[in-house]
């Protein structure tokens, strides 16, 4: 218990040390390490490591959900973590992205997925601006309830507007385009260019399972792993973009706005513009995740997929992970999606324990699992000052 405690307690410091060590490496080593790290995550649902693999539900599908939540958390991290705006209606953007894709690919058009995806992103971004322009003038916690209301309005609208499929939802959303043959129906003999077998573990002894192979690269109804790969690729691209923007002038403007809006405004930062930008960017990423979700394995969305509760979970993901740190947000999103599925054997109890875990984690590590470096530095300085005030040697 104590070891776990110290381990989690020092997670942030350990993480920093790892990052520093990584930065100290030479370029080829860096590239090698990054590639290995990325490959591991791509291969994860095929490796099916024991303990980590979910039991009552397909691991590939869970990993898809994990990646979708991680992407959402990454987007929401821009809004909450970077710009400091509490958005309790983020699920609305997720819904806009999903519905735009569904409407364009099947309901009122027959666009291919990869054409609908950028349009969905743009539409969500515009929605973000339309919502943000009036509401971002409202400060602080009021924004929370206004955005919450917005999320509800979106959900009620899609429930009641026939043009958007109403309560029946939209079905048969086409999957992304496959590479290689992808015949429909049962008892088909060949799908995809080649098969990648997955590992089956008997205790600690792995064996290849050729019977349940993943077909490269077909987006079918029986296997979620290709969807996971696609989403993970998108996640990596967004991660890269996030890194660029955070280090830019925009990122610094967000930080200034979050820490002290008035001071930032006085220093000539057009805070409203930057807040709106954060809101729109966050929205776009949420919409992107929604778009992938809509064209996922099931190919079906309905308004019940976008409940208010999901917004709460998204916010929880960002803050539990460590608001302001992109890796923390990803970890938080992954955990929030993963934990309830991993502990399916608790069946009825799992939401209960999930709730308890959220509270315990919040009380125990208020700064999140992986807080940004700045927060940790501030905390240690605070501790030092406190110690000085108490008159004890530091």
């Amino acid at each position: 218990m104590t070891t776990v405690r110290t381990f989690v307690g020092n997670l942030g410091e350990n993480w920093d040390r790892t990052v520093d060590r990584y930065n100290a490496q030479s370029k080829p080593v860096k590239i090698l390490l990054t590639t290995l790290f990325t490959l591991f995550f791509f291969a994860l649902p095929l490796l099916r490591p024991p303990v980590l693999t979910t039991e009552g539900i397909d691991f590939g599908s869970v990993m898809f959900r994990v990646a979708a939540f991680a992407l959402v958390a990454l987007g929401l991290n821009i809004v909450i973590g970077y710009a400091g705006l509490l958005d309790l209606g983020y699920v609305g953007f997720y819904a806009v992205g999903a519905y735009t894709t569904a409407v364009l690919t099947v309901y009122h058009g027959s666009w291919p997925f990869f054409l609908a995806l950028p349009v969905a992103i743009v539409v969500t971004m515009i929605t973000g601006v339309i919502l943000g322009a009036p509401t971002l003038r409202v400060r602080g916690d009021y924004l929370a309830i206004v955005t919450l209301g917005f999320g509800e309005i979106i959900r009620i609208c899609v429930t009641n507007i026939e043009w958007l499929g109403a309560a029946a939802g939209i079905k048969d959303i086409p999957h992304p385009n496959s590479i290689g043959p992808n015949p429909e129906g049962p008892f088909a003999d060949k799908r995809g260019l080649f098969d990648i077998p997955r590992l089956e573990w008997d205790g600690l002894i792995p064996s290849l399972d050729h019977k349940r192979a993943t077909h490269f690269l077909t987006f079918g109804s029986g296997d979620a792993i290709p969807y996971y790969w696609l989403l993970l690729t998108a996640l990596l691209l967004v991660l890269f973009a996030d890194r660029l923007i955070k280090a830019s002038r925009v990122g610094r403007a967000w930080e200034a706005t979050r820490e002290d809006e008035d001071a930032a405004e006085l220093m000539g930062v057009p805070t409203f513009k930057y807040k709106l930008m954060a809101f729109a960017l966050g929205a776009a990423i949420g919409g992107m995740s929604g778009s992938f979700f809509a064209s996922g394995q099931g190919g079906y969305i309905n308004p019940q997929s976008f409940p208010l509760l999901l917004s709460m979970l998204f916010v929880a993901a960002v803050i539990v992970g460590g608001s302001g740190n992109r890796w923390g947000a990803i970890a938080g999103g992954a955990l929030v999606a993963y934990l309830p599925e991993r502990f399916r054997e608790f069946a009825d109890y799992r939401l209960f324990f999930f709730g308890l875990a959220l509270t315990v984690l919040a009380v125990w590590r208020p700064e999140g699992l992986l807080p940004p470096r700045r927060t940790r530095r501030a905390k240690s300085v605070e501790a030092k000052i406190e110690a000085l005030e108490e008159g004890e040697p530091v």
Partner: protein
Amino acid sequence: MIRSTKSLRSFAAIASIAALTLSACGSSDDDNKTDGGTTGAAAALCGKNIAFLGALTGDAGALGQNMVNGIKLALKENDAKNPDCKIGLKPFDSQGSPDVAPGLATQIINDDTIVGLVGPGFSGESLATGKTFYDAGLPSISPSATNVTITQQGWTTWHRVIGNDDAQGKADAKYLTETVGAKKVFVVDDGQDYSKGLAGTVKTALGDALVDSDQIAVKQTDMSAVVTKVKASGADAIFYGGYYTEAGLLAKALRQGGFTGTFMSGDGSEDAQFVKIAGAQAAEGAVLSAPAGPAPSGFEATGLYATQAYDATNIFLAAINGGAADGKAINDFIGSYVGDGVSGPVAFDDKGDIKETKIYAYFVKGGKLDVENPSPIE
């Protein structure tokens, strides 16, 4: 060398199955009439499982629990009847969410011990997973998914033992206008897929008798606006499409608001809870239709959709006991199945819909939902 051990093993397997079958035949002579198929053919799928996919927790968890109780009852009876051919249940909890369902469906099709599926529970889950099950060739029978479009997808493995919303809606409208003699009917639904489908059919079938309509939200408790509208419309009957929670609250609010006409609702409200929520006095005289006959007296699994789940399970058991050895055989068996379930006669058309749906009207009498004496209305 390797080949010979293999053939030896398979010989042993055949021998043991034969022995099992013989002993099964010997012990179950008396109830051969119900599962006559067992004679001769070996029940190849003994010890395998039937999966259930639906909500067991979450908002609709109560409905899923009803279904699981029905399945368990059927399996328990089978275990008692065929102690040598026990079939297990693997429940998969979707929480009623079409987002989680595909992952569970993938798990189900990758599990070799699962030979059939009772479910999915709701229409959303069915639409999100139908293709997965179809591509994998896993036969399924849903006890409760009533959306009309599911069986129009061409999924030949998909069946349901419950009539779709069309048949019931027409019968309900006819009942209101002809039997009750209502001149002005007000239709309310809760905006869900099932409810809108049912209420929509009723509206169309009512024609001129429809005076107005409104739509509430699931979990809404304040019905005062609807009550005012109903009273303002001068309706002499009201039809509600939705589930028993809101139906009960609506009936209660209507009676307390002084509405005296007939209250009618569909199978989603046909549950003893309706009376509890509305209160005995407000529920009195309410008519609740359902595409299912009364459960036989002493039937242990109670609640909405329990009888349908029981029937669905029994079809799988009949297929397995009849010697079906793989998914295709079970699917063929289901397609040609004709029998009498506790919810009514069961046979499927080529799309997977139940062939003959009898709609019954259940009445709330003397402060109780009378589940034993419904009157057939279509």
